[in-house]
C-alpha cells in the first residue's frame, strides 16, 4: 500500500523521508525468497538432478539425513490408530521444536505456498475496493482443527489429507498435478469475493495448529517507535491478522511494544508499509520502547 501514496495523507507522504524500494518491500521480498527457495529445494532434484530435499511439506528427507514431518499430520495419523516409524516422530519433533522457538505461524508466511495465493487475493481485494461478503468467525479454524482429528479417528483414514489445500498445493507444485488448481482457485475467489483473509485467517486448520505453537515464539514484531504513529492505518490494512497489532501499538491491555498474539504470522509487512518506521523485527525479550 505504501507504494501508492494515498490521497488522504499527502502531507505525511511529503514529510516522511523518502524510503527506498528495498526499505518499503524488504520483508515481502525476503518472505517470497524463502518460500521460493524452499520450493526450489524440492524441485532441484527432479529438475536438475540435484537432490536437496525429497518428499514434500507433509514429510521430507533433506540431504539424505534430515527427516522433517508435519506434526499435525503425525497427530492425525496417531488419531487413526496407526503408529508410524521413528523417522516420522523424529521429523515431527524437529519441526515442533523449530516452530516453538521461532514462532508457529512463521510457517504460514515464510513457508506455506498458499500464502502467496491468499496474499494475492487480499491485494486484489484492496486494489479493486471489494467490500462485499461475509467473514466466518476466526475461531472456525480451531473447530476445523479439532474436526480433522475427529474425522481421522472416526474414518480411520487421514480424512483431511484428501482435501487439505496446503499439502495439496505443495504436492501439486512439486509432483506436477492439475487437480489442485480448482481448490487453490476456489480459495483465491473465496478470499477475493467472499471473505477478506477468509482462508488463512479464519478457516485453515494447519495455520490454526501452527498458531497454537506460537505462544512462546522468540522472533516477534514490535512497535518500539509507536509514539510516531500517525494513525494512517496502513499496517491494519495490509496485516493478515489485524487484531494482533492494537495491543502493542496502542497499549491495549499491555505495556510491552511486542506483538505477542500467536495469530501474528511474523510476516513483517507492517514494517514494510509503515512510513513512520514504527515497527521492527526483534526478539521476545526486547522491551525497548522510545
Amino acid at each position: 500500500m505504501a507504494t501508492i501514496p494515498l490521497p488522504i495523507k499527502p502531507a505525511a507522504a511529503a514529510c516522511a523521508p523518502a524510503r527506498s524500494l528495498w526499505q518499503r518491500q524488504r520483508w515481502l521480498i525476503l518472505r517470497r525468497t524463502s518460500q521460493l527457495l524452499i520450493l526450489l529445494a524440492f524441485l532441484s532434484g527432479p529438475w536438475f538432478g540435484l537432490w536437496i530435499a525429497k518428499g514434500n511439506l507433509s514429510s521430507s528427507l533433506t540431504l539424505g539425513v534430515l527427516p522433517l514431518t508435519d506434526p499435525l499430520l503425525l497427530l492425525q495419523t496417531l488419531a487413526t490408530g496407526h503408529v508410524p516409524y521413528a523417522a516420522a516422530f523424529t521429523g515431527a519433533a524437529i519441526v515442533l521444536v523449530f516452530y516453538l522457538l521461532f514462532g508457529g505461524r512463521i510457517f504460514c508466511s515464510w513457508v506455506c505456498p498458499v500464502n502467496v495465493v491468499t496474499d494475492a487475493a487480499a491485494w486484489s481485494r484492496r486494489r479493486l475496493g471489494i467490500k462485499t461478503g461475509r467473514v466466518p468467525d476466526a475461531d472456525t479454524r480451531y473447530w476445523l482443527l479439532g474436526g480433522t482429528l475427529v474425522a481421522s479417528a472416526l474414518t480411520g483414514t487421514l480424512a483431511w489429507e484428501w482435501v487439505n489445500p496446503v499439502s495439496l498445493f505443495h504436492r501439486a507444485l512439486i509432483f506436477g498435478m492439475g487437480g489442485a488448481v480448482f481448490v487453490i482457485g476456489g480459495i483465491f475467489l473465496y478470499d477475493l469475493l467472499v471473505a477478506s483473509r477468509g482462508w488463512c485467517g479464519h478457516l485453515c486448520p494447519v495455520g490454526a495448529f501452527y498458531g497454537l505453537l506460537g505462544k512462546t515464539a522468540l522472533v516477534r514484531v514490535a512497535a518500539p517507535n509507536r509514539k510516531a504513529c500517525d494513525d494512517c492505518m496502513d499496517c491494519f490494512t495490509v496485516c493478515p491478522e489485524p487484531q494482533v497489532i492494537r495491543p502493542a501499538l496502542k497499549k491495549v491491555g499491555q505495556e510491552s511494544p511486542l506483538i505477542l498474539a500467536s495469530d501474528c504470522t511474523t510476516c513483517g509487512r507492517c514494517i514494510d508499509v509503515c512510513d513512520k518506521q514504527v515497527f521492527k523485527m526483534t526478539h521476545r525479550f526486547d522491551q525497548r520502547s522510545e
Partner: protein
Amino acid sequence: MDTGKKTARKVTEAVSPASAARRKFINSVAAAAGGGCLLALGAGLYSRSASALPAQALRPPGALPEPDFLAACVRCGLCVRDCPYDILKLSDLGDTVATGTPYFTARKIACEMCEDIPCVKACPTGALDRQLTDINQARMGLAALVDHESCLNFLGLRCDVCYRVCPVIDKAITLETQHNPRSDRHAMLLPTVHSDHCTGCGKCEKSCVLPEAAIKVFPRALAQGALPAHYRKGWEEKARHGGSLIGEQVELPVRGFEGPTAGRSATETVLAPSAPAPAVQAPAVPAAPKTPPGINSHWKP
C-alpha cells in the same frame, strides 16, 4: 469472543447489553462450530466415498492392506522419489485413487521388483511395511487371465509372453498343457497364475501383446476368492493322515454318463464328427456333430 465471555459473566441476567453480548458470543461459537464440523464432516464423507481402490491402481510393494494404508500414508511422495524407474505416481485430486497416495498402473508401467526395495526403505510412516525384505514376497496385486476368448494361448497359439516375462517364472505363472478340442491333435499351453507366488508386479499385463491385455493385475481384494474357513479338501486331509478319516467308502456304480464322455476325464472332451456314433444316439443326422445325451457340461478348457 473473550471480551464477550467476560461481559457475559460480569453482568446479571436483567441487563440487556450483557444478554446481547452473550447471544452474540453463543451465535459466533455456534457458527464456528457448525462451520468447522460441517467442513470436517464433508472431508470425512469424501474420503469414505473415495476410499475404495480402483481395479487398475496397484500399491507399491509392502503396502499395508488398503484401510490401514490410508491411515498410515502421509502422501509425502518419498517412495515416488526413491523409485529408480519412475514407476510410482501420486494420485491427483479427483482421481479415483485417494488424493496424494502412491500407485502404479500395470498396463502403463510395471514394477521392476528391485532387490533392495528402495520405495519401502524410503517410507517414513510404515505405510510400506519394512518387514518386507524379500521382493518375491511382495503382494502388490494378483494377476488374473481374465479373457479366455482373446488370449492367444487359449486359441492354441504359442504366445507365452506373459509367462516368459514373469519374474517368478514357473512359479507365479505356469503353462498347463491341455488337449486342443478344436484341432483334436494339438495341445494348448494355458498360462495359469498361482496366487502363492504372484507378486502383482504387472509385467504380464504390461507385456500382453493384445491391444487390450487378456491378463490383468488387480488389487488382491478384487482378484482373489477365498474358501470358507471350515472347508477341508478331502484328498489333502487323506494324504496328511495317511488314509481316509471316515473309513473306506463303498464304491457305487456311476450312472448317467452313457454319452461319449463316459469313462473319460472331463478335460478329454471329444466332439469329432468322425467318431462313431454312440449306441444310444439315434443316427438321424450322422453328419452333424451332435450333442450327446446324458450329463455333459460341455466344459472345454
